[in-house]
């Protein structure tokens, strides 16, 4: 009996262990509107300091695209107290690493340090927020660097322009129609005044969230945050009012050329709701159903059995105002793009017309449980999720609750959502072809 109860306890502990990884956090606002989130985990002597600004590629005026990404570069140039070109050296000479990235919706800057350099991380980010040096020299250098980045990532890279083609064809009015990195002529046209004004508008504490995660002591950290970020003046509230798109009601066919490829690609794309909407979570499940793993529907059909595709993938590209849903495939040998497109539509049609099997539904739930366990495996990753959940989803606690949303999605709902967004008359077919010159 005693032995039995021990085993029973052990198995209960096992069953609970999936829930047991709850991420604890504390959040509050400073007077200047900066939202602060702290996550303590003392298991390794490492700390992440990060700031996410609610500014991305879409935050621009016509003729001034790509500014948020440009700022990602510019805000490493130096501050009133950090000499130009010294940023990376300060970080690395203190045993840390740092980087930044920009999407259409937000910009994320972060440092990871051994935990005895927490104060340094806070100093760096507060310097960046308080008084970055923005001058012509920095602007000129970083313009060239961004142009090289564009050549490297997009112009010189096989299939590198695909996302731009997608944006251009799924949107007509909303800023998502233009590339996140912007048009180079817009960067060239940007004046020092434009750049300074952009900084004053978006890079303010009330448009940002600070996350400190890892090997910290809460009270000491709060005090340091107040010291370093408290004096930063509040900015005006950021107002966004981007034009809404009309629904796509007739299938569109678009053709694009890429000078870096030999094998064409096809994309079947749909415009879907922004990532906060429940339907976007359902669409996540549909893309996993279609193409994640060797037993997924599209992989099994197009790659494995019919041997028509070299690769196939369904992606939900999450964005704040509207998402982009893409089913992408590369043909093997002489397979035509039309035949891939009809193969894709056949499988998508099945999701619209039939309930997925009980077994496949359970498989999806297992996959999302596995993803959930892995999603919070590093402090760096947790910091990024906390920032994203607060700033873009408006609910920090999603870090622990997101799995409940997936669990609550039913087979019927999957069918319903597929019918709502993934019909042929709502799609854009993209023929992405080898060409002498890249153009779209």
């Amino acid at each position, binding site marked *: 009996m005693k032995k039995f109860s021990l085993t029973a306890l052990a198995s209960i502990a096992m069953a609970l*262990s999936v829930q047991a990884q709850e991420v604890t956090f504390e959040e509050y606002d400073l007077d200047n509107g900066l939202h602060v989130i702290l996550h303590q985990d003392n298991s390794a002597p490492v700390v992440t300091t990060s700031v996410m600004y609610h500014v991305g590629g879409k935050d621009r005026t016509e003729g001034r695209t790509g500014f948020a990404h440009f700022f990602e570069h510019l805000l490493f140039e130096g501050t009133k107290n950090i000499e130009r070109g010294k940023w990376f050296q*300060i970080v690395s000479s203190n045993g840390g690493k740092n980087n930044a990235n920009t999407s259409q919706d937000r910009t994320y800057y972060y440092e990871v340090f051994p935990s005895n350099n927490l104060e*340094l991380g806070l100093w760096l980010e507060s310097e960046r927020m308080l008084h970055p040096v923005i001058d012509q020299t920095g602007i000129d250098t970083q313009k060239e660097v961004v142009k*090289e980045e564009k050549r490297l990532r997009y112009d010189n890279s096989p299939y590198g322009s695909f996302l731009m083609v997608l944006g251009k064809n799924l949107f007509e009015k909303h800023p998502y129609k233009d590339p996140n990195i912007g048009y180079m002529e817009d960067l060239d046209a940007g004046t020092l005044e434009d750049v300074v004004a952009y900084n004053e508008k978006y890079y303010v504490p009330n448009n940002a969230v600070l996350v400190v995660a890892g090997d910290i002591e809460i009270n000491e950290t709060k005090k340091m945050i107040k010291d370093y970020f408290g004096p930063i003046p509040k900015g005006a509230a950021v107002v966004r009012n981007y034009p809404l798109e009309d629904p796509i009601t007739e299938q569109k066919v678009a053709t694009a050329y890429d000078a870096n490829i030999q094998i064409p690609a096809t994309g079947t794309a749909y415009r879907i709701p922004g990532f906060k909407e429940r339907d976007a979570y359902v669409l996540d499940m549909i893309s996993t159903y279609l193409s994640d*793993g060797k037993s997924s529907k599209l992989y099994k059909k197009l790659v494995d059995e019919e041997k028509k595709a070299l690769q196939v993938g369904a992606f939900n590209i999450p964005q704040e105002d509207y998402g982009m849903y893409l089913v992408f495939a*590369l043909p093997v040998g002489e397979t035509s793009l039309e035949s891939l497109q009809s193969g894709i539509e056949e499988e998508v049609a099945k999701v619209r017309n039939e309930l997925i099997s009980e077994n496949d539904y359970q498989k999806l739930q297992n996959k999302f449980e596995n993803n959930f366990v892995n999603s919070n495996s590093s402090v760096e990753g947790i910091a990024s999720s906390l920032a994203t959940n607060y700033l873009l989803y408006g609910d920090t606690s999603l870090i622990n609750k997101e799995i409940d949303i997936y669990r609550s999605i039913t087979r019927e709902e999957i069918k319903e959502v597929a019918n709502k967004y993934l019909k042929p008359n709502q799609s854009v077919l993209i023929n992405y072809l080898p060409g002498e010159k890249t153009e779209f």
Partner: protein
Amino acid sequence: MKNIITLLALVFFTATMTAQIDRSKQPQAGPAPKINLSEPNTFQLKNGLKVMVVENHKLPRVRIQLDIDNPPIAEGNKAGVSSLLSSLLGNGTKNISKDAYNEEVDFMGARISFGSQSAFASSLSKYFPRIIELMADAAINPNFTQEEFDKEKAKIITGLKSAEKDASTIAANVQAALAYGKGHPYGEMTTEETVNNVTLADVEEFYRSYFVPANAYLIVVGDIEFKEAKKLITEAFTPWTKAVPPSFSYSEPKDVQYTQINFVDVPNAVQSQVVVENLVDLKKKDEDYLAALIANQILGGGGEGRLFLNLREDKGYTYGSYSSLGSNKNSKSRFIAEAQVRNQVTDSSVVEILKEIERIRKEPITKEELDNTKAKYAGRFVMALENPETVAAYALNVEKEGLPKDFYETYLERINAITIEEVQAAANKYFSIDNARIVVVGKGSDVLENLEKVSFNGKTVPVRYFDKNANKVEKPNYEVTIPEGVDANAIIEKYVAAIGGKQALENVASYALVAEAEMQGMKLELEMKKTANNQFMQDVKVMGNSMSKQVLDGNKGYMTMQGQRKDLTEDEVNKIKEESAPFPELNYLAAGGLTLEGVEVVNGKKAYKIKVTDNKTVYYDLETGLKIQEVNVQEMQGQQISQTLILDDYKEVSGVKFPFKMSQSMGPQKFDFIVKEIKVNEGVTPADFE
């Protein structure tokens, strides 16, 4: 009252604290955090498999890695066999069908994947017992089928095609091939041709030889008790048959004798890929290993490296410029300094990279640089410990590389002890300035003119040209354009006029030619006869014995190869017919269908390139009008083989100019035939074609 005092004290306290923050000064680090370096539990199976288990219960998951540490393997003319093996592993087992296997793994939300000598799996810990079984079964009892093989082969070939125009893929391939040589495992190239040479039996053979436990390590990290793991692993992997892989030695790769630019033209490139590289003989257990790492770090290890600060932050040439230093216990490896830069600054980038390499060799680094870099290494070491797999990776390195047991315990101490002099010595030993290859892959028409002017330390750096398969080629030429009004027919007419005129050519009813070439000290004799009536005879003799002979008489003919005679098929008859006329150009004019493809430089001369058929391209000298080269593509045993015939030394015989030097090349072979005799309208009888 007391409250007010406390309040005041608090206010005062806060105020002073705020005042103490001097943000103009960079905050100092607190006391160094404590480091905990644990060791994995280990055991070994009888078949040789070594197992390491790191328990970490933070998350309910397990990761499993199988690493077979064999020496490098050359795949030769079957390059691609290992890629095929990795795609064929994990497609079910002899006990479970592919579909059932994939379904089961996916259902658990787990992943299992294979390399040609490795495997990886991850899952929630509750599924570990089944996942380790599935992984072992797929590794030990693979399910190889012809159907899967054909499919994966088609995918690899399509994949190779997809990268054909990708400048970075081309650059990576050529850099390795030139540095190591194409016969070395690290320098060989996988091409459509080599993949086509691979059969399913080759894959099985590769598996049997190399997917064996002698050098294998299994590493398990995660939420699992050691005792439980040991039991499950022993059960799953004991059936793996004990075996040792064959080992080979390879010729030692060598650096170039003098620093040079190796240029590969990729006309669609919008950036140049610049790499300065040399070979290094460096192992992790070497005394100066850490000093060498520090030297590389300072030169180009990241966003604060000299290369980055110079080429990106100062000049804006590139998105990033970095260097890397390899180490390898089995072979030489490479030092690389690189940047992807815009076309216009290709030459300047080469110079700046060379300058930085020279500077770190010649001038001692500063104390500040050394201290900063040491701190970076220390930080990286500490941060890596967050990941439980680090402990396993360190233990694995100690085993594989033959490092001292305390290599990682003393790591920080040894980093700390490195001196400026040691770093400079390592820079001089491992970074070359006199024997460096500068591999530039880019758009020649934009970058070559300036690249040829690159000079360093007062000397012009010579440029050699290569194609994307790292074969030496002639310098590409971009200056010439086709003059207006010139078309294919006009070029042929000019050629006809240049060798004697239409009338003179039509008067040639037949000719006979005798030529000689040398092959490895032996004499090769060529006899050729042609008439205007579809008659053709070609006989190649070695030391007086016929080696190959082709004869055509109207609509029939035969060929003999080393004594074996075979009648020509209809196709072959038609092919030879096209070439049997004394001057095929006269037929070209009548038949039409020629395409002028452009102007190229052939052996230093500008020539019009005319496509006659899909398989035949002919080049005519821009100035003299003479035919100077023919390229024929032939299908042989399923492969496209290209033959080049270079024509030179034209001399007049009976009013018509004939080439007296004919160089034939096919693959690596080249024969220079010198014409001894040409007879026009004599020396040919009908008996020659019987």
